[in-house]
């Protein structure tokens, strides 16, 4: 007994925290048909473990819940850029950018046409349903003349909205693409043509022969306001008048496999090449426990500078360090934080989810980050932001330092970060030598030498306070 069934997809789809065997697509949507054709071809060609599919924004945004291959989600219209990165860094990968007409032909058209023009080793599937389906049926670049949509209630007019964009024909003006085709999932005959085209485009990727573009006309019953069968008829009868089906270009026999891109240098070499010559190379040290820290507060409090100072001290002490800032668009007053990792070996990720050490200068940041601190961690915060209703945790050590007050009393309230530095030094939580911290304290002001004396003054005052008040 042989079985015709879906292959190459996950056995169940774990959307919204529950497993289901049902897709999120509307009844009669063309996406599912194309999904099945793609995964079937990938399995038949033995490419499942080599494939990375880049999901778009649009109805196919949840593609990664379905395709049992490598998956990445891209920002709106940017699937070709992400696919380019995958294709160039993993030369053996079969790279699929799965997009819709709104995603590709409007929002990401430049991205798409440039990738096609470069002839990247990837296949782009553009599901063309002549509308923005996910957002509720607005006019898309491929909407037909006269087509009524949410944003063209009188029907699309060439004079005001332009003509439907024929992406396949536009791409056919480029030199680089190896294969360009348009097909449809409107009925059985067209689905079987699409099956051949999908397979061909994926074979080209298997052989590394270059860029393929496959446009798939697909019904969107919901946005068209038609039932599944009527929208399939619309796809076959109306859409094909503007978007004729067929293989528009097939250079597959002439095309030779592209040489794999030669990396300019390895990642460690890259960092070695661009390392600041002032710093000694980091040294592996199994005895040093990696510190993962977050410094947080408002813009203008020197949050990012305090972070830089600490990693500069770490670098001087020949530790491996990363500094990863996050801040709002405001120069002053917005939130600002940075994640720091200081370690005795190569750092895997610069992102800090659960810090060992948290330095906090504002109350909102304390409320945000305190729950994330590892049990047994240390939290340094300005006394000013504490109070009877301040968040607290019994399993972390909270060190309150009157940083802003001390800094203001000694010349500048903006040097509160320096007072925090003295607390970090005094409590020895970073495990960094004093001379490295002192050197970094001055070095971070190398562009503002006039402030060094004031900063040292605040530093000394802070350290004196710590010696008196902290264990």
């Amino acid at each position, binding site marked *: 007994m042989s079985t*015709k069934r879906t292959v190459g997809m996950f056995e169940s789809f774990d959307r919204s925290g529950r497993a289901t065997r049902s*897709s999120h*697509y509307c*009844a*009669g949507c063309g996406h599912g*048909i194309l999904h*099945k054709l793609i995964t079937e071809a990938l399995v038949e060609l033995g490419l499942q473990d080599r494939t990375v599919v880049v999901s778009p924004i649009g109805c196919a945004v949840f593609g990664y819940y379905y395709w049992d291959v490598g998956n990445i989600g891209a920002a709106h219209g940017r699937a070709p850029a992400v696919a380019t990165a995958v294709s160039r860094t993993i030369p053996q990968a079969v790279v699929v950018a799965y997009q819709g007409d709104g995603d590709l032909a409007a929002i990401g058209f430049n991205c798409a046409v440039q990738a096609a023009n470069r002839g990247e080793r990837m296949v782009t599937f553009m599901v063309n349903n002549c509308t923005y389906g996910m957002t509720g049926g607005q006019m898309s670049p491929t909407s037909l003349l006269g087509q009524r949509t949410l944003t063209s209630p009188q029907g699309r007019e060439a004079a005001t909205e332009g003509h439907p964009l024929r992406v396949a024909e536009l791409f056919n003006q480029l030199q680089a693409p190896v294969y360009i085709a348009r097909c449809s999932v409107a009925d*059985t005959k067209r689905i079987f043509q699409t099956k051949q085209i999908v397979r061909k485009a994926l074979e080209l990727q298997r052989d590394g022969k270059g860029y393929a573009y496959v446009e798939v006309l697909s019904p969107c*019953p919901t946005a068209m306001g038609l039932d599944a069968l009527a929208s399939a008829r619309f796809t076959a009868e109306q859409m094909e008048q503007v978007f004729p089906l067929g293989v528009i270009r097939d250079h597959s026999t002439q095309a030779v496999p592209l040489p794999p891109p030669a990396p300019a240098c390895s990642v460690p070499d890259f960092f070695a090449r661009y390392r600041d010559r002032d710093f000694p190379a980091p040294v592996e040290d199994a005895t040093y426990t990696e510190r993962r820290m977050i410094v947080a507060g408002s813009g203008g409090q020197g949050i990012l500078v305090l972070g830089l100072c600490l990693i500069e001290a770490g670098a001087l002490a020949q530790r491996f360090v990363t500094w990863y800032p996050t801040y709002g668009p405001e120069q002053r007053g917005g939130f600002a934080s940075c994640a720091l990792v200081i370690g005795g070996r190569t750092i895997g990720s610069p992102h800090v989810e659960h810090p060992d050490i948290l330095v906090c200068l504002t109350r909102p940041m304390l409320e945000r980050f305190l729950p994330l601190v590892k049990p047994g961690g240390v939290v340094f915060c300005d006394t000013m932001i504490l109070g009877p209703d301040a968040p607290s945790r019994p399993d972390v050590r909270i060190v309150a330092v009157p940083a802003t007050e001390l800094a203001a009393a000694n010349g500048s309230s903006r040097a509160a970060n320096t007072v925090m530095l003295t607390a970090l030094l005094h409590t020895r939580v970073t495990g960094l030598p004093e001379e490295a911290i002192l050197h970094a304290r001055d070095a971070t002001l190398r562009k503002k030498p006039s402030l060094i004396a004031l900063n040292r003054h605040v530093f000394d005052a802070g350290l004196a306070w710590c010696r008196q008040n902290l264990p």
Partner: protein
Amino acid sequence: MVEKQLNEGSNALPHTAIDAEVCKGCRRCIAACPQQVLRLRPTMNHCGIQPAEYIGRDCTGCGICFYNCPEPYAIRVESPDRPTRNS
């Protein structure tokens, strides 16, 4: 008992198996079936949808319903292996 066998199809014959809880009732398979052996079930599934069902005879195992179906796991088509020349 007889009816159940008809709906699921005999294992010896080609047949279409439809998961009634996954089917969204779009009717594409029904329209596409060359044998016209699919229809909407008179009763609803848990989503309030009338799913497609196999009438229980004359399926040739062609797979056309499977390819027209937008749902990954709504339709499965079973067909007995064709006898080879040597068997």
